């Protein structure tokens, strides 16, 4: 009852966040590769309510992805080796973007290239398209032979891709980082210096699973990326490290299933969060997470996201 009474005094835009000039109505986005191009989840979610939709990774040409089997459930998580199957940037603009433009939601295009020049060309094409509000640069896919993590694991290569994309667009540039490195803060600092407006982390952790009856890997790609609740503590630790190492906003990703999980990331210092595997389990997960964050804000009498983000107390730790 108290919450109901309090809700009437909610300041409009209480959940709003500003990430490098990109104003989101709330800090909840969908993670790339887990929400298709938005359309897939429109029957279950009000897309207008989302902070942003990060679409499936786009490459210059369509990609057919890896052979099956591509996924395997593991303890409290799943492995995937999809290999960035996508329609290509041109088909995205022609066939998928018009659908997304009907909604009052920020669209973030996740991009991928095998070469630095491919990242540049995809950025160039997307920057001219109406209805793309930011670019998320994927330098962290563990499931492709060329590109992907080959750029994300090395500070110089990560900086070079970032600089190329930065120079090609006036849209906010978010760089998505891999956890499969010795020191993620080193990569974060490198892309910050190269002009990234924000970083998002983590992408999946490389993992493996074996069918003991057939003595074969469960995935045709042998290894895959681990996601889901199993990775959340690792993701949170890396967000904690990165928020203390860079000045740009950090977007937290990794095993967020509930509003409580999202709040852990926000309190730790993430300016926004992305919801991934949870969409597969509960198609309306994002809606419940948004509601849960709002209820928490009311319950704790927090007026705006700025007062929540990074409010972690560590004195005496």
């Amino acid at each position: 009852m108290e919450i109901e009474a309090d809700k009437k005094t909610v300041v409009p835009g209480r959940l709003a966040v500003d990430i490098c000039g990109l104003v989101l109505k709330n800090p909840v986005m969908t993670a790339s590769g887990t929400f298709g191009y938005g359309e897939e989840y429109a029957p279950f979610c009000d897309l207008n309510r989302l902070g942003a939709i990060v679409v499936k990774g786009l490459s210059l040409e369509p990609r057919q992805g890896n052979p099956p089997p591509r996924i395997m459930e593991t303890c409290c998580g799943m492995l995937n080796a999809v290999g960035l199957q996508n329609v290509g940037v041109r088909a995205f603009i022609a066939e998928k973007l018009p659908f997304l433009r009907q909604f009052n939601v920020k669209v973030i295009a996740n991009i991928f290239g095998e070469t630095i020049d491919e990242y540049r060309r995809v950025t160039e094409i997307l920057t001219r398209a109406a209805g793309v509000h930011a670019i998320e640069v994927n330098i962290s896919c563990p499931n492709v032979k060329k590109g992907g993590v080959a750029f994300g694991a090395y500070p110089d290569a990560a900086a070079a891709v970032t600089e190329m994309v930065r120079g090609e667009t006036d849209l906010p540039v978010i760089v998505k980082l891999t956890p499969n490195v010795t020191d993620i803060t080193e990569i974060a600092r490198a892309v910050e210096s190269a002009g990234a407006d924000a970083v998002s982390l983590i992408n999946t952790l490389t993992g493996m699973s074996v069918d003991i009856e057939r003595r074969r890997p469960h995935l045709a790609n042998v290894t895959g990326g681990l996601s889901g609740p199993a990775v959340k503590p690792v993701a949170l630790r890396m967000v904690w490290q990165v928020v203390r190492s860079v000045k740009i906003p950090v977007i937290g990703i990794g095993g967020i299933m509930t509003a409580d999980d999202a709040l852990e990331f926000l309190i730790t210092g993430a300016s926004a969060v992305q919801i991934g595997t949870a969409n597969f389990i509960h198609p309306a997960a994002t809606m419940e997470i948004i509601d849960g964050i709002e209820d928490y804000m009311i319950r704790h009498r927090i007026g705006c996201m700025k007062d929540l983000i990074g409010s972690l107390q560590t004195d005496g730790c």
Partner: protein
Amino acid sequence: MAEKPSVAIGQVMENRSVAPGHFLLTIQLPLSFATPIPGQFVMIRDPERGEPLLPRPISVYDFQREEGHAILNLLCRVVGRGTSLFSRLNRGSTLTVLGPLGRGFTIDPDVRQVLLVAGGVGAAPLAFLLQEGSLLKPDSGKRKVTAYLGAGTSELLTGLDRFQGFCDLRAATDDGSCGYCGPVTELLAIDLGGYDAKSTLILACGPAAMIRSLDLLLRDTRIRCQVSLEERMACGVGACQGCVVAIKEGEGRIGYRMVCKDGPVFDIGEILWNPSVDG
């Protein structure tokens, strides 16, 4: 036209063992749940459990609307941890049901003879097709339906009662305990010459080995054939792209289609079998 899918909270009305390792789940759903098309599936999950994490895709075996609610029946085989837990659900348990999902069977008006070919629990979507009525609706003319049901033993011919008396029935068991002794595709091979290739349509669902034998059997005929495939899935709605099957795209090129969204029903001729992957 398929109706819009939704997520519903279902209540287990009955959970009955029908054969060793096979069970029939009867779930009560709100009336708002869309009517499935035969061949479509649902993703079910126990909301009380955090693990297993992912919902499991199960073909619709029967769907009825009653006063105030709908009743969904799922015929399942225990294959892993998820289905094993479902097999032990008690009456009154809740399940989240996402669906109906995927592309079902399509029957062209010129089809005069339908052959339903099932292996084991693969009988489920075909039984729904037969019971749902559109196969034999009045404007379908003099359409004949013959079911070829195969299983390891007579006991494992699950769903038999849904075919008996509703169509011509041919059974095959590996141990000869019912009908022909051997694979159901062998039995079909014996009869196949007796069907008119132009007006016959085969609809099949069963283990990968059965579908592959069927593919080989039909390769030199012009009989149309749609098969319902199964694959591990995460989302069921075309987002994760985890459940793909390799498809011939012409000029020797391979493409991948999602079993959840582009299927689970495919034309058998489209499918590319990859021995190194399928084992």
